[in-house]
């Protein structure tokens, strides 16, 4: 192995009592695509922040081309030649591509536009420099972010979960770009928890678990099973693939729903139809921002229709389009939204008070006053039954990790014993073990005869839990596909609208 481009020795970083990184050693070789593999919360993001100068380590040394360096700020990291593409993009939607780039990189717009085109040609990152960002797809936005990094001619490019936002086809294109970059002398640190991707393009993988390095291997020489064990410390639970059962009566029905949102940047829904029966799981696939959040608000009642259009949304045999969330819940509907903090839960309130949010009908009120004992009992049961890691019902919701809060909200909604359960992005930011538990719960609910609707960006997840899948693209919802017989590529085509008009 040649002399490393970047070396870390004994990097340690703690946040209060939590040790996010403990004595991490890492060597990134030149011309290499190096994976950092780990569950959510394993310390990947912290490590990247240390390398990019966003945070300072408590202890440890950094060597760049063999010389010790001190990284105090992202600016310094950039001067050395380290670039980073964050998971969540930092582009101004109302500006054009070249305007966004000119905020960071010096030069006239004409020269910058020429550079953008040139980089696009060389690395397969074609994007129109004068397009406004809000009109670009997620994949194109990511290209803009990568181009912006490449403008500063980095030697090392850090990509934080770059594929989590992309449809399958775009992942292939991204990998092609990364290989070309490597061949031109740019090393890449590729952060992910998806084993197949790492095996596809990485030549080295450092595996983190609970803030420590648990493996440093060539991923092509190990099978997914080995890597998973290093990552989660035990064997992966087997995939579920629920047995087909005969579904019962229709519990949720949308027929040709059209909706123009109030938000000017929202997505208009056109002719959205779906029908969900008792005892089945229907999945809605698609890249975020294609109308899923508008659809979920219409189903939950957070956005209401006029009285005249009440039958556009039918729940448990009743037109509910004009009803608010409370009335729909009273019918037997429960909902886990994709935003946990600030929507599914109030961060400043205790878990007990967050139970009250939707479970107040479970005997927690007496003549308009809150029964604190009942509230605490419900919350404690939720914490116990759904394995929420927290000091107790009096902990503030905002203090829980994303995965634990999701388990709590799932638990709260399931404890309502709904007839229709709607979950948006059930395992976003949830670690692998907890995600498996959540998926098992969803299938268990289905087996008990609950009608379950799931919106997810993760195709593997949908294939694992769903009976049927429909795909959302630009406000249209495709026809229903059988999850057992449909291939991922087919769904992927619908996700990017490659099948022409999705009906």
């Amino acid at each position: 192995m040649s002399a490393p481009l970047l070396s870390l020795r004994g990097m340690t970083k703690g946040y209060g009592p939590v040790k996010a990184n403990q004595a991490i050693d890492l060597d990134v070789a030149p011309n290499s695509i190096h994976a950092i593999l780990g569950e959510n919360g394993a310390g990947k993001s912290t490590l990247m922040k240390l390398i990019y100068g966003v945070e300072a380590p408590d202890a440890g040394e950094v060597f760049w081309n063999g010389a010790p360096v001190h990284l105090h700020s992202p600016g310094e990291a950039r001067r050395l030649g380290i670039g980073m593409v964050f998971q969540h993009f930092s582009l101004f939607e109302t500006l054009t591509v070249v305007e966004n780039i000119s905020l960071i990189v010096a030069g006239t717009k004409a020269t910058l536009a020429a550079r953008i085109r040139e980089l696009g040609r060389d690395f397969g990152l074609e994007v129109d420099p004068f397009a406004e960002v809000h009109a670009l797809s997620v994949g194109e936005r990511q290209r803009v972010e990568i181009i912006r990094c490449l403008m500063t001619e980095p030697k090392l490019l850090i990509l934080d979960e770059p594929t989590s936002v992309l449809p399958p086809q775009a992942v292939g294109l991204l990998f092609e770009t990364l290989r070309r970059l490597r061949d031109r002398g740019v090393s890449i640190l590729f952060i992910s928890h998806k084993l197949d991707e790492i095996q596809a393009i990485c030549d080295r993988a450092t595996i983190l678990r609970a803030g420590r390095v648990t493996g440093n291997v060539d991923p092509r020489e190990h099978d997914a099973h080995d890597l998973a064990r290093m990552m989660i410390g035990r064997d992966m639970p087997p995939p579920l693939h629920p047995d087909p059962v005969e579904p019962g009566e229709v519990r949720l029905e949308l027929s040709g729903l059209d909706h123009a949102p109030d938000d000017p940047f929202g997505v208009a829904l056109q002719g959205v139809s779906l029908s969900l029966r008792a005892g089945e799981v229907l999945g809605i696939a698609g890249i975020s921002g294609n109308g899923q959040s508008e659809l979920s608000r219409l189903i939950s009642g957070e956005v209401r229709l006029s009285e005249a259009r009440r039958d556009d949304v039918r729940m448990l045999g009743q037109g509910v389009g004009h009803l608010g969330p409370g009335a729909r819940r009273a019918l037997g509907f429960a909902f886990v939204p994709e935003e946990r903090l600030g929507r599914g839960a109030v961060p400043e309130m205790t878990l007990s008070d967050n139970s009250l949010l939707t479970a107040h009908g479970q005997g927690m009120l007496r003549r308009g006053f809150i029964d604190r004992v009942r509230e605490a009992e419900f919350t404690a049961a939720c914490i116990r039954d759904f394995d929420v890691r927290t000091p107790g019902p009096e902990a503030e919701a905002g203090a829980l990790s994303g995965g634990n809060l999701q388990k709590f909200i799932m638990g709260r909604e399931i404890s309502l014993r709904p007839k229709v359960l709607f979950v948006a992005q059930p395992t976003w930011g949830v670690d692998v073990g907890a995600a498996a538990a959540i998926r098992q719960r969803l299938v268990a609910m289905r087996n008990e005869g609950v009608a379950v609707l799931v919106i997810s960006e993760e195709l593997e997840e949908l294939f694992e839990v769903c009976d049927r899948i429909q795909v959302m693209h630009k406000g249209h919802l495709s026809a229903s596909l059988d999850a057992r017989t449909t291939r991922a590529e087919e769904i992927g085509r619908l996700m990017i609208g490659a099948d022409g008009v999705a009906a």
Partner: protein
Amino acid sequence: MTLRLVRREKASTRMAVLAPLLALLAAMVLNLLLFLAMGKDPAAVFHAMLLEPFSSWAGFSEVLLKMGPLLLIAQGLAIGFRAKVFNIGAEGQFILGAIFASAIPVYFPQATGAWIWPAMLVLGALGGALWAVVPAFWRVRLNANEILVTLMMSLIAIQVLNYLLLGPWKDPMGFNFPQSVMFQYDAMIPILLPGTRVNVSLLIALFSALLAWAYMQRSFGGYQFLVGGLAPKAATYAGFSEARAIWLSLLIGGFAAGLAGAAEVAGPIGQLQRSISTGYGYAAIIVAYLGGLHPVGIVASSLFMAALYIGGDNAMVSADLPVAAVRVFQGTLLVCYLAAVTFVRFRLDFGASVEGGRV
């Protein structure tokens, strides 16, 4: 070196208790400099402002008299503030309350009976609530900012008061002064503490604090307000109506302010006149925040603010302080408090801590 505000993982209880005291200290230091610049003796000013109100029974009873309306208005406002509905127009609602209450003695100056003063209080409360209907309606209907509408409604209220006092309600025997007739005995709230001007309305205000406590800390209705204020999306998700929160916030605020206005004309003033309010409606905003928007905290902060009113009067007399200086003190106090409460939830992160780490 850069300064950044970093969110604490948990609200600091120590800071929550310390914040009002630190704010008081900071405000005193700032005003100390001001008094020095003005050539006043700060020790004499602070003695007059902060100690004299508590040093005699007569002085303290005046503090209690001022505390009543401040407490009442602040409890009403705090409920709305916690739902992030900002009713800045309590002053106008207070004036309307005074006007509505005065209608009875103005039109029935000869009436007698124990029903009169309670009826005036009820009428006054309704008047205040009515004045809050306008901003509530436009906020729910057109999303018109309630801060502006309530504030403007206060200006209108002052002109309505002027019109009545210069026109139809002017006391015919009053030498053309802009004031109503003096109210008859039965239109006056009974005195609570003999030998002082403190009347039964103080009990009503204290009782309102109890009601506010039960509502905000124990009831589901108050919980919905809190959720709406802390996380509006969570309130929508749970199905709590925003319109209901806006209506209730403004109506409760208007009701309480109107009640306070009625108690003022039927209490220490005894007639409707131009100077019925000495800025209670605005001072109550400070009181509400100084009390941490918590019903119990507001009891303490209203007492404190009332003492500051009396102390300010004392300082004007004994330390020759201009009236504006008292307002400046109140204002500095609010600014310092708002700065202090920020640190309950956030802490300062010095960029230097990054430098300090060994790389």
